[in-house]
């Protein structure tokens, strides 16, 4: 191209950019988990009560089987994330 403009721009070339991308990924994963947890709480409250308020969502403290289920899902989610990273490049 004439003038002053990059055609094939590449920016994330420093090794630190790998850590930056990792941090972004974890922020997104954390946010995804917050939403999954919230949805689970909403579904549970709807099952139990048929309706809910915002304060119901905030004040619900998952206990017993509900807490165990969320914990299993959380651990499975993060195990998959790190397993995928650990096994990247394997045949």
């Amino acid at each position, binding site marked *: 191209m004439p003038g002053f403009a990059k055609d094939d721009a590449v920016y994330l070339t420093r090794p630190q950019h790998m*850590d930056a991308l990792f941090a972004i990924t974890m922020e997104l994963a*954390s946010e995804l*988990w917050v939403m999954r947890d919230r949805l689970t709480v909403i579904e549970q409250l709807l099952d139990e009560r048929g309706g809910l308020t915002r304060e119901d969502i905030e004040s*619900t403290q998952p206990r017993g089987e509900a*807490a*165990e289920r969320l*914990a*299993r899902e*959380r*651990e499975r989610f993060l195990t998959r994330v790190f397993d995928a990273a650990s096994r990247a490049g394997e045949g």
Partner: protein
Amino acid sequence: MTTAQPAVPDGMRADVELAQRGRSEMQFLQAMRAGLKPVQARLRERLEKGTALAEGSGDIERLRAAVDEELAEDTDLGLIGAALRWNRSVLTPRAIDAFEERSEELTAKAVPPRAEAITDRGEEAVPRYWRYEFHGTAGGWDGHEHMGFVHHELVYRYLLVPSFPGDIFGQRAAVARLAPRQDYTDICDLGCGTGQFTMKLAQTYPDARVTGVDLSLSELRYAQRRAAEAGLEWDLVRAPAEDTGLPDEGFDLVTSFILLHEIPPHAIRKVFAEALRLLRPGGDLVFSDVAPYHLRSPYQAWYDDWDAENGHEPWWRTAATLDLTEVAREAGFVDVRQEALGRESYPWVTLARKPEQERP
């Protein structure tokens, strides 16, 4: 193993409830640790099949170099490092956000009953090592008015209790019981924080007057609250453990629990000298800290040292390689001995006695 929250851990309030975001963000951080465990287990398996660990745990620099060489082409350690670093970097800010989200309810549970009763030696007494944000505690240990509550009730509950092996409060109780006498009247706990070990001392020696010393005012404020909730009153002093400003020979037991690995070796020597000054003749010293590398398995010694280097623990290596019996004897203590209370020599306890006064 799952990451469900256990019943309220020992010594923590039962009535701390976070809003949905704060709760699930803290649980996410714990699940990250759990999700890393299979990757860490595979790395350990590879190391144990290899030759580097045969170097042994006697010389940590050689062991680190051998493992570095063996892992030169391995990508998992970088993954584990990045994940733990990110986890630590957001832990305190997330916990503070979770507190703020429920600020009104939680502040009422955090405020000290008599903050003005805490003796403060002031900024000029604060040593250089305190300025480093060890453990990666963003903003420092006084970075929030209620950091003591945030650390004790949220960081311990959501992350440290579920992530670390063993009963960490039971370990504190076992060390408190190890002091050789039953009739202490004046106990000084150096580096007391929110009083986790101090509480075990107070429960083990109910007739003793208890003094707690720490550099964090917000930790001391929550220690005062915790003591008050238990019907106790402690003398609390904000000062470095090596320069408490407390009177000579005012105590018959001086203790510390996981303080020494947070401070440089010259400060460790001064802490022993200060303990000798604080003790009456015949008084006891009980200091519990990280296990020496040479008593750990090679894998555990390697991991301790790697984790310290990558986890904001600048003085762990020196503490884990320093002979505390020699330090105690040089300070003037007698009857110096050491005892391992658990797996892989942790808790590792140094006990010593101040000599009886020579009679004229």
